[in-house]
């Protein structure tokens, strides 16, 4: 079992997503960044776009996110954005 970490997508309208994930593909300003568990503290700004989240249960979820910030520290990741819509 691969290591997992917790991910939250927070918008001003509330928490859009909360779950335990294996991998997140974040649309950063200079391309995509994949984040696995035990990542070093990382703060990156996102230009928005498609964000792919691989959940611990094996599902893959696509989100359409607005520009924002992605932060991960001690296996707790937060994505802050103005808008977020799930695609599948």
């Amino acid at each position, binding site marked *: 079992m691969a290591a997992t970490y917790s991910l*939250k997508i*927070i*918008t*001003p*309208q*509330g*928490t859009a997503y909360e779950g335990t994930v294996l991998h997140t593909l974040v649309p*950063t*300003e*200079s391309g995509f*960044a994949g984040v696995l568990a035990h990542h*070093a*503290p*990382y*703060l*990156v*700004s996102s230009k928005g776009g498609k964000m792919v989240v691989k959940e611990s249960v094996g599902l893959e979820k696509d989100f359409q996110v607005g*520009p*924002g*910030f992605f*932060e991960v*520290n001690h296996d707790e990741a*937060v994505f*802050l954005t*103005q808008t977020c819509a799930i695609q599948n």
Partner: protein
Amino acid sequence: MSGQLRALKNRIRGVESTQKITKAMEMVAASKLKRFQKLREQSTPYVRAIEGVLNRLLQTDIPLQHPLLEKRAEKETALLVFTSDTGLCGSYNQSLVEEARKFLRPDYRTPLLIGIGKSGVNALTREGHTWHRRFTDTKTAEIESVITQVTAVLEYLFMEKRIDAVYAVYSHFTGKSVYGAATEKILPFQLEVTAAITGETASPYIMEPSREALFSRLVPLVFAAKVRMIFMESMIAEHMARMTAMSQATENAKDLIASMVLLRNKIRQAAITKELIEIVSGSKALKN
């Protein structure tokens, strides 16, 4: 006598239907209040998270600069006036307009006015003030877009140096359910660094693209979140005010009905007594 009685009965009926209306409005205000309170609660995690990111960016000693934080001599200012679109909410709008007037004295340089809500816009227009932008009759579904527009307008004006400061007049909470009209300076805004959490961030963050770039992207978001909070607070205060005003009106109607019912009964009793006297004195006159 019977004419007076009928008129009174009509009035009682009238007050009763008014009472029904105020009661209904109270309940409507209560449900709207709940909705906005929920909205505010939902945005708290966002605000907290944004503050967290901000704190991490500010933890190093190198000061960061942003156009929205730039302090200039206040030659031109803008004033945001938050009032309600509809009336029947007690002294809510009056106190806000009163607060806004402090800025509109002749010895002050007239600020650029941005109005949200029909009440305040109309009241100040009557006094001869003109508006830079005004948002009236905002539907609940349009609030988000109004917030975005207001934020964008303010940012633009401030960045273009058309204005040097922005003040907002809105209902600020001083307690759990206590609010009052307040003026707050929202631009250039102060970044509050909540006591740096030491020890927790032993390993420094990897920041991309750079600390400065992140900061310049974050500041507008912090500002937007602040404007949003002000919106939410004034919405909550408005509905709270309306709820109180309407429950007061319902109470008053109840008292009024009680006193009128008493009067009605007195008049009716007086009429009966009078008729009895007439009958009795009539029969006495016959016996004699």
